[in-house]
């Protein structure tokens, strides 16, 4: 448990953006893994199997949250355009790390649950395409396509802020 504790908490915190929710979710993941342990057949590594349980659990939580969500990217850009631009600046101010983390969570929560999950597995957890494919039970091509779609969606939505940020520098 100690071996997987940090990475489970990190995944949950990255996806849920809240330390308390992340701890609750991590506990649930360990309980689910314990209950499913008899079904582990070593067809994949234990790590991948565990990530699959964690990913499924977080995906369910994100989908539940998405149903309650009302904020949109357009509203966010309108209200906090400058902060978003600052977030994407090449040299971010470390003093605003907490505010930036909250803003990043707001932006990411506008993404579909699956898109946020796959981007987090890649960008925060550093999983390879193959590991992501095994964790999400999909093909390598599907991983590439989903990652590309999610990245393009984010870039397109904030392109004007990103480009104006570049021209300033």
């Amino acid at each position: 448990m100690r071996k997987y504790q940090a990475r489970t908490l990190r995944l949950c915190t990255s996806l849920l953006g809240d330390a308390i929710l992340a701890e609750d979710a991590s506990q649930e993941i360990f309980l689910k893994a314990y209950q499913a342990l008899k079904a582990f057949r070593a067809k994949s590594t234990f790590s991948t199997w565990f990530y699959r349980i964690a990913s499924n659990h977080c995906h369910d939580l994100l989908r539940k949250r998405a149903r309650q969500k009302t904020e949109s990217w357009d509203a966010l850009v309108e209200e906090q355009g400058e902060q978003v631009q600052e977030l994407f600046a090449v040299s971010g101010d470390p003093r605003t790390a907490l505010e930036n983390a909250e803003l990043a969570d707001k932006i990411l929560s506008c993404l579909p649950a699956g898109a946020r999950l796959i981007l987090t597995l890649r960008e925060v957890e550093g999983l390879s395409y193959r590991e992501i494919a095994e964790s999400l039970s999909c093909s390598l091509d599907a991983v590439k396509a989903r990652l590309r779609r999610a990245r393009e969606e984010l870039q397109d939505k904030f392109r004007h802020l990103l480009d104006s940020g570049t021209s300033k520098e």
Partner: protein
Amino acid sequence: MDHEVMKERILALYDGELAGNARLEVQNHLSGCAECRRSYERWQRVAKGLFRDPQVQPSELFVSRVMERIDALERPRHAVPWTIRLRWAVPAMALASLLFLILRPAQRSVSIEALLLADARENGVTQLVLASRQPAADEVDGSIMEAQL
């Protein structure tokens, strides 16, 4: 080269999924193509802004909480079988007793003697039955033999 194809390879380069010649080819393209370079840098900034390591602190308290919950899951598994068994055993035994009591007299009335008498009656030997008494064994045997003859 087609930019759509290259976009996917550029992302693969960013993700560290390219090696050898494929990696060199994309790197060469990036150094010569301003549009693709801009796209690559744009994503680098988005990723840097949005995906940061949340710096979590693992704790022993977390481990003990999970262990407590696992213990709680396990506990009822040992206690439940006796109560469940008792809960079902009482009505099951009552039902079995009831069935036994209902079926028992019916079984007793079907004796070999009664069967033999019925057979003898079918063959016209009714005087033994009309006497409204239990026939003696030799009487039954005699009537059977008569019937068979």
